């Protein structure tokens, strides 16, 4: 899939993190002709947050900054299998964000209205249409938190997350990029206001530009470069059930019930929710989260009661104050580019984030699409508030 190389002591660009973001950045860099690139990772390829992502792709965001960005990402996903010559198994079967309270429906409507105006197919549907789209949802109205409406987003779907990672890795490799798994970065080299490379267990590596794409660990890598981030690392848990005969082809998500559910091509149900209530770098799953997710899943779809959990796992995420990513250069630290702050929504952004950051690295000019997401926004109080979307969709 990709070749092994001895690690050299210098590259034009070093990307820290061989997850979907790092590899997509490498791929698009190479496509632009910047091929002297090394992607370093402390573990196996796609083994961090990418391995743990439940890989839902959608564009139904809340802000005028976020919607176009994710819209372009969705477009790239639609043709990614052809682009990479690798089937990423994008099942564009649609997604429902279910609202069980007036305040939630209000938040969903804000998204729908902006989505429509910005070219993203979203609409608000009532219980009757929900019943047709996903008959197993509990639509009883005589209960606490009855389903009132849903944001239906037909172009959303799921991808096979590993396939996206491997597809980008293979593509980048084919264009001359070196991928170095099991090559942890232990320090960032600086000369004055400039980042000049990284320190690894296998020795120093000099680079014209260093890109940090290390979801969950962004604060650590940036800290090595002397850059403090508005990021706190939180765990995100999910589980899968045993395989079941297909009975549900849409992704369903409920902000009020803190749960999302979809069925894979293999028949397993993937069930997840929001990040845990405390920050940690620990990847150990908790019984409490398993219970909560199970409880809410059964509340939303009562027929799941006898379905069995087969495996639970945990990833870690960069949470930002405004639930929006941080991309671009850092004032006062030349040669260091951030691809961070991906919270729980990183996978769906990987193609466009990689492409945009590649353009920035290759040309030195920040593409308009990612300009609002710079680190400067915190000092200038120009937060991109994706929070309302994130209540329902801190859930992916």
């Amino acid at each position, binding site marked *: 899939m990709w070749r092994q190389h001895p690690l050299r002591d210098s590259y034009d660009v070093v990307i820290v993190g061989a997850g979907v973001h790092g590899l997509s950045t490498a791929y698009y860099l190479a496509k632009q002709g910047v091929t002297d690139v090394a992607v370093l990772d402390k573990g196996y390829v796609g083994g961090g947050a990418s391995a743990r992502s439940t890989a839902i792709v959608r564009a139904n965001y809340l802000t005028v900054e976020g919607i176009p960005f994710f819209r372009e990402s969705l477009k790239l996903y639609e043709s990614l299998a052809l682009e990479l010559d690798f*089937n990423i198994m994008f099942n564009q079967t649609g997604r429902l964000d279910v609202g069980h309270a007036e305040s939630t429906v209000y938040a969903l409507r804000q998204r729908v209205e902006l989505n429509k105006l910005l070219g993203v197919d979203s609409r608000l549907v009532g219980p009757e249409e929900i019943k047709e789209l996903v008959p197993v949802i509990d639509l009883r109205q005589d209960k606490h938190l009855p389903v009132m409406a849903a944001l239906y987003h037909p172009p959303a779907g799921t991808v096979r997350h590993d396939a996206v990672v491997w597809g980008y890795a293979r593509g980048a490799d084919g264009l001359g990029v070196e991928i170095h798994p099991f090559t942890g970065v232990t320090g960032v080299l600086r000369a004055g206001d400039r980042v000049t490379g990284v320190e690894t267990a296998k020795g120093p590596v000099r680079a014209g530009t260093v890109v940090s794409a290390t979801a969950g660990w962004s604060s650590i890598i940036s800290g090595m470069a002397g850059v403090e981030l508005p990021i706190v690392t939180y765990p995100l848990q999910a589980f899968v059930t045993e395989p079941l005969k297909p009975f549900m082809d849409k992704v369903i998500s409920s902000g009020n019930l803190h749960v999302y559910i979809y069925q894979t091509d293999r028949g397993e149900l993937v069930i997840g929710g929001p990040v845990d209530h405390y920050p940690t770098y620990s990847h150990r799953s908790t019984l409490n989260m398993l219970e909560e997710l199970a*409880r809410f899943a059964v509340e939303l779809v009562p027929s799941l009661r006898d379905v069995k959990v087969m495996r639970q796992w945990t990833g870690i995420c960069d949470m930002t104050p405004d639930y929006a990513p941080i991309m671009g250069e850092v004032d006062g630290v030349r040669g260091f580019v951030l691809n961070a702050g991906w919270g729980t929504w990183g996978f769906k952004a990987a193609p466009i984030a990689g492409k945009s950051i590649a353009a920035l690295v290759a040309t030195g000019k920040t593409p308009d699409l990612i300009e609002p997401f710079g680190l400067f926004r915190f000092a200038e109080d120009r937060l991109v508030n994706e929070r309302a979307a994130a209540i329902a969709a801190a859930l992916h």
Partner: protein
Amino acid sequence: MAAGDCEARLGPHPTQAIDRSKPIAFRFEGEPVQAFEGDTIASALYAAGVRIFSRSFKYHRPRGLTCVAGRCSNCLMTVDGVPNVRVCAAPATDGVVVSRQNAWPSLERDLLSVLDRFGWAMPVGFYYKSLYRPRLLWKIASPIIRRVAGIGAVAAEAPSVARYTHRNLHAEVAVVGGGAAGMSAALAASDAGVRVVLIDDEPALGGSLRYDLRSYPEAAGQPAAHGYETANDLAGAVQSSPNVEVLTGATAFGLYEGNLLGIRRGSEFVKLRAKSIVAATGAYEQPLLYDRNDLPGTFLSSGLRRLMHLHRLRPGGAALVAATNDEGYHAALDLVNSGVQVVALVDSRPRFPHDLDAAKELQTRGVLVLPSHGVVRAEGTKRVAGAAVSRLTEGRPTTEEREFDCDLICLSGGFTPAGALLAQAGAAFGFNAALGESVPVKLPPGVFAAGSVTGASGLDDALRQGREAGAAAAEGGALSFFRPPETAPARVDAAPLAEAPGSRGFVCLCEDITSKDVVTAIREGFTDIQTLKRYSTVTMGPCQGKMCHRALVSLCALEMRQPPDAVGATTQRPPLQPVPLGALAGAAYLPIKRTPMDRRHRAAGARMVDVGPWQRPHSYGSPRDECLAVRNRVGIIDVSTLGKLDVAGADAPAFLDRMYTHKFSTLRPGRTRYGILCTDSGSILDDGTVTRLREDRYFVTTSTTNVDTVEDWFRWWLAGARWRVYVTNVTSAYASINVAGPRARETLAKLTDVDISRRAFKYMRSAEGNVAGVPCLFLRVGFVGETGWELHVPAQYGEHVWDALLEAGEEFGIAKFGVEAQRILRLEKKHIIPGQDTDLVSNPLDSGSAWTVRFDKEDFIGREGLAAARERGARELLVGFVMQERVVPSDGNAVTVGGFPVGRVTSARLSPTTGQAFGLARVPAELAQEGQEIHIHVEGRDLPAAVRLEPLYDPKGERLRA
């Protein structure tokens, strides 16, 4: 189903789990099946002649009982509507209804088994490399692939939730595993006088000793006896120990932080927190790799012993035993003693084990034993009809083959430690070359291990390790006892591989992954075990690696020419065994909060609406009529859900000055002031009124859903700061009612002796007195914009005061109003609702509340953020608007300029008072001019509206103050 075949059962024996005096009847595929109490569904079906128990996931190959211990996925069936039940571990009960899965029309004849013939066309990684060009192809293919996916089906109509229950347990020592080591550990801990819980997933204690017919010499204090006798002996001692609670039929599926065990016991979910954990979880017997190693009739040796000894079944007529260790000889002897002909025993080891009694006995009984031999092929299509064996050279098969007729293949591939719980807890594992297994080498604090999970074998070791671990665990020492085994049985590599073209040696039964698939994936470059697993899906099925992980590691080591420890391992994640969502969910419900007047609202036919955890009346009929009643007469609304905090202490005035943007130290007792709370960066956190009751006491209200946040917030700023301030959440102590409208004063006057005259009780004043004979705090506030009082009475008088007000107001045309009317009324007054009209980044300066910010205070929470915001100037402002047409936008509609969204409507309604469609919107600052035309996007049209900076209703607040 024919005959129950009870005569096929073996005679009674002390090991038997079945009670032949208690017959049971159930249905399988619509046919009646006879069983005995103590049977599993699987043992009863096997007795009834069923041999194919499932069809495999991918190729629909026939699969039969294999592990007979609830580990592999070969016997998944639907039981009483519950999908994917391992019937070999499910007790047979009267009347239960069992049906096949993933096969049509029957298990014997499954039409989709045709897929098996096209295995060559779907090599590992097939989907990644195909079906995506052109783009539409995947859209077409995916639904077809999905249709054949999955195993069991979800019942459309869900059964009752009530059958799952939860229980919490605490213990000094929790011992997981009720075999020799576990029981020994439990007894040792119990002897130390601590409380012990012993958990085992079998219906009875004993572990593998239950079906162990061997004679053991005296060992570790146990007298010489048969294995099962020792099991009984120890179980008796455990059961009679007052310190030990025994949970049998209970699976400890996860070991979580803080030594928390998740345990599933039938319909019960138990959470057990223990000071120390002893994992005596045993080992999983492993199958062997050869062509068609999945044919029904292929058993693990332990599986056959279970069928023979626990269920007293003669499993077949003739067996070939394939062993890599001594265990196979014991199994072979058991088979012979149960009347099964053993056609041969092949042993991958080079030498006949002369010092093994069982081996000598077999020889005496005329059983052919072939050292340096392994199985290379099973014969048969739907079940085992024979086996081909080959001489091995350096563990690899040669062309020297022999064939045997048999209907059973008994596999004894050795035991791999069942270390999942230890791994979950963070234990480190290392490869032990003598054993050829990964064993735990370092345990986390408070976690101990004993028995075969450590790699130990033999009763003596198990008992001794158990005793030592139990004693150490009881002491609760921080240092964990652990000792790797000193001796190991001689064994060569467990996985003789015979790769012939078209060969089907299944590494992973759950996922139908052959050794060829694994090798292919490795050759494609998936050279680390994690990506290999993901690419090939090996170990990812329902058994989660219990039956395949070791073979995978061996295969990787062989193919990559690396030592097994360099291959590494996949991560062992919880749960250890699948757990139903319902068991985890329990009888849980979503908690609802009801106000003290809740019954009255429901009796009045109110439409209730969820507001956070609360249920509140949305309206009692027409919100419009309710509004008009308030505007023209008098209305009452239940506002008990308002958060209420009592803030007292000498520093309370200074503290509130610090918390709020407004000033409260200057507020005189008996007065009320509106206040906004901000975060330090200046964003609005919440709002409410602050009433000074006395010099050192304030009554603070918060919005309904934010009281906990505000309480936590206050306490956070108080923590360690040496303020003399005491915050008490009194939300549920009061029933709260807002009486408002031009006739409110007259209504209230009938019920109180407090002077509520216009002159005596001015706007934004408070008083304490009685209403309807009960104590009450009166606040003259005006969220809805009319003369009115917020009454706070002790919660238990809520209904009483509510009734009294309705009665007193009857002559004035009083009406109850709900939250919808309140929202309209406050909107007419341009009173904001945080969260509705503001968001995460809104501040008072851009939300029409600049008047609440007192920059003349030296410091308050949010001051610096707001000062910076003031300097920058607002980019966006909250403004009122009135639609040109009578079209009411929805909350959340966009404000547009040239079709592009620039802002949004936060609240919009039709004003019952003026008849206009109006609302609040957040718009770019340059549009926030009185009369400015803006456009609001409603159902595809950009409709004109005019900005209106003043409230729609009573802009001067005259009615409010009247």
